[in-house]
């Protein structure tokens, strides 16, 4: 019995050492240690050994088993490292990877999603509203009566009202996302913090910085104690999160009929960081937002008592924010579906 076991051990070791691949090694392992392997069978036969000699033979068998297992393990490690070396040398690691075909999200979407993230972090919710709008919500509810000269700054596209009950001129394409102020204010009780990204329309000839269709962002907040300092702080926070902390924001007084006091925000040019370049016409500053404290007439129109509630509102050209962020020198690039543009985002 002992000779048989020793014979198995010697045979196993020589087989193991001769193995040239992991597959061969696996075969050898099965041949000796498998369910019907030589050693397994021999160990089963120990039962036939006289009782008094069984412990001794058993110990030897165990020892041999350990030796074979260790040898297999050593050989396994050697073969495996050789195997990896071989596989690796077959790969030219300097060759470029094969990229999966992935499409691209449009810069306007990037801008919208990033803006939403920033405002969500300070408690704002996002609303979406109609583009086909009444003169009432677009102008009148915003303290811009029919013959207000400020209408000149927002030349309007009018919808064809033939064969309808609507008076000509009463239904338009919204010229500003501020139309949502009146709509939301009249539908809910303050406090509220709202942003509205959306498309707006103007009767305007297209050039590098103008278009008849473009994107705006409207924001407003109403509560009992919302102040001008909050307005300036909110805009400052948004701009710095959006363009980077090194961007400066400055405010000047401005008039918009739906706010009082009114303001305009300029930011240091995100392209040249204020040094002066073609984007900012060498001034280092870019006009970015219109803002102010919501005019009491706007609150009153929505049946909100301006003696209890107060708030701020702001609006900005989203298309312009996007082009400035990505240093695109023409608004029309945003509506150009050229994949050579889209692939960059």
């Amino acid at each position, binding site marked *: 019995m002992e000779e048989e076991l020793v014979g198995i051990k010697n045979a196993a070791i020589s087989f193991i050492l001769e193995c040239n691949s992991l597959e061969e090694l696996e075969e050898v392992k099965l041949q000796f240690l498998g369910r019907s392997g030589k050693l397994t069978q021999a160990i089963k036969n120990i039962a036939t050994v006289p009782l008094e000699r069984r412990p001794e033979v058993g110990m030897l068998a165990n020892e041999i088993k350990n030796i074979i297992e260790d040898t297999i393990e050593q050989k396994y490690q050697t073969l495996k490292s050789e195997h990896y070396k071989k596989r690796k040398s077959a790969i030219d690691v300097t060759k470029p990877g094969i990229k999966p075909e992935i499409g691209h999200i449009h810069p306007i979407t990037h801008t919208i999603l990033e803006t939403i993230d920033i405002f969500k972090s300070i408690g704002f919710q996002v609303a979406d509203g109609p583009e086909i709008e009444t003169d009432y919500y677009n102008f009148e509810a915003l303290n811009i009566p029919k013959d207000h*000269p400020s209408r000149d700054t927002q030349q309007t596209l009018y919808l064809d009202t033939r064969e309808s009950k*609507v008076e000509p001129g009463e239904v338009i394409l919204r010229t500003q996302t501020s139309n949502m102020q009146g709509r939301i204010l009249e539908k809910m009780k303050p406090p509220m913090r709202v942003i509205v990204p959306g498309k707006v329309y103007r009767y305007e000839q297209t050039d590098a910085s103008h278009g008849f269709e473009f994107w705006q962002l409207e924001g407003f907040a109403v509560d009992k104690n919302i102040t001008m300092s909050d307005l300036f702080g909110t805009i400052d926070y948004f701009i710095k999160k959006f363009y980077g902390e090194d961007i400066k924001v400055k*405010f000047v007084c401005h*008039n918009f009929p739906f706010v009082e006091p*009114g303001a305009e925000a300029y930011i240091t040019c995100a392209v040249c960081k204020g040094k002066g370049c073609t984007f900012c016409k060498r001034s280092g500053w870019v006009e970015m937002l219109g803002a102010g404290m919501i005019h009491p007439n706007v609150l009153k129109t929505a049946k909100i008592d301006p003696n209890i509630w107060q708030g701020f509102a702001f609006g900005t050209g989203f298309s312009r924010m996007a082009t400035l962020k990505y240093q695109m020198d023409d608004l029309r690039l945003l509506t150009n579906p050229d*994949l050579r543009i889209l692939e960059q985002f």
Partner: protein
Amino acid sequence: MLVPLSWLKEYVDITFSPAQLGERLTEAGLGVEKIEKIDGDIIFDLEITPNRPDWLSIIGVAREIAAIEGKKIKLPRIKNDLEKNKPKNVLPLTIKTDYKINPRFTGIIIDGVRVKESPGWLKEKLLKMNQRPINNIVDITNFVMLEFGNPIHAFDYNKIEGNIMQVKQARGGEPFKSVDGFNYRLPKDAVVICDSKKIIDLCGIKGGYNSGTFDSTKTIFVRVPVENPVLIRHASQYLALRSEASSIFERGVNAGGTIEALKRCVDLILELAGGEIASKTYDLKDQEFNPWKVKLRPERLNKITGIEIKETEVLNILEKLNLKPKKSAEIITVTVPTYRNDLKIEEDIIEEVARLYGYNKFPKTLPFGEIQTTEIPYFKNYKTDEKVKNILTSCGFSEIYTYSLISERALEGMGINPDKALRIDNPVSLEYEYLRPTLKPNLIKALIQNKPNFDEINLFELGKVYSGKNIDEAKEEYYLSGISNKKNYYEIKGIVEAILDELGIPSGDEAGLTKNIEVVDEGIIFELNYSKLLEKTTNKKIFKPLPKYPPVMEDISLVINTEIKTADIISEIKKQSEIIKNVTLLDQFDDTRTFHIIYQDMQKNLSKEDTVKIREKILKTLKEKFDAEIRK
């Protein structure tokens, strides 16, 4: 508006450099667009907001500078005293007006003027502000308008027939030749002045040619009016005729300033053109145009601004703005001069204090207080859009944004009757006349545009479409469309199904899916009514426990007439037992289709006998319904 620094300096001492001054004025709300050095002078190009007619004058701008610099303004010295004027010869003139259309009519006759070229200093001032010098009388009226902000017109008195001036509204369609020689047809309700025979003035916009001041003019009537802003705006918009005067009247002229402007004008005429006053001072009005009072509560000022500005500073600012603040109890009362008709309510005064205090001195805070936790009206969940867009980009599609406005040709190209689409009355061009009822034409155009540069093109747009054949039925909905020139029908269908899965909409039940995918010349295009899908979407994901017992899977190959739809076969198989969890088409070759069936019982282990029974039932039914044979 162009404003020369040299002229401003006649009224106020300026210590700031032009650049500093530009910055301070902009901060205060008087936007300086450009500062240019021209012929040894500095010219400011100002953007005047619609609320400030006073800034359309040199003195108005000088007042702002005086407030910023903390200086006093030096107004031109008036020599004559028109209130007590006693002319030697009085020429006859009857004036009839209507205060609703002409709130104030101030004027005077001057006889014996000599019309000639203006002196150099006057011409130079006008030229710097882009005004063409004409003759001394016209130039003086323009000069005083630029200086004081009150438009003035000089009529040739001898051409006013019947010695009568009557202010009334046009019937509409009357011909009118302006003093600069252009012909117009007047809109209805335009305010005009007629003599006994004809229209001699288009009020607030342009004087008439037939009563203008030319070289032969000897006697003039100088009129300084207050016009109705709305009526002026209507007429000037209708005629597309803008003048300095109409811009001022539209914004609301300084109604309390007509006499001062007339005095200044008369001074200059007597000095530069000679002649003498030949009438009383006409001043027709039905109300006094006096300064008004507005109350400011310092507590309200603090509550709106969020800062505490010292009371002495508040009073000082209001003083500098010539608002004559009076403090009593807890209230400051200001008296607003008539040239500031933008100051009507407390918030207007708050802005005055805040802007001169300096917006950039404010601390920057975030709103505190209650956060609204309920969903706001018009709420939109952009997360869903983002998920859908991520699926499309991971499938190789790039996002585009195209115009909502399209051409009649584009509609017809899609077989859509333009009469059934929403139309713009005043499109910027015929290319952008209709609101798109589908995203498809723009996607096709975009694909074609990319062809020269790309082999495989996959594009999508998530955007609004507009339906309804007229405004009453107008409806806006988001559509999601995509186009591909290389992917096949099944790949596109699979992508659409993946989107529906993500939205929690069972795609199998959307039998209508096939009508949303279309084969066009350029490739395959899909279009989904995204707004409708969002109504059906089930965002809630609820975990289903994993089955305790293993499923049994098998593949069955059937020979079935190729006319029979796969979807019908699958639904028939599913009907045969509740434990059939899923059936998919594995393979199709000629008339043989192989289906992969998963049996799963949640309660027990399935035995061979269990599935064999169901299998027989399936085969029997398919044989009866579709004459299907099992492939041997």
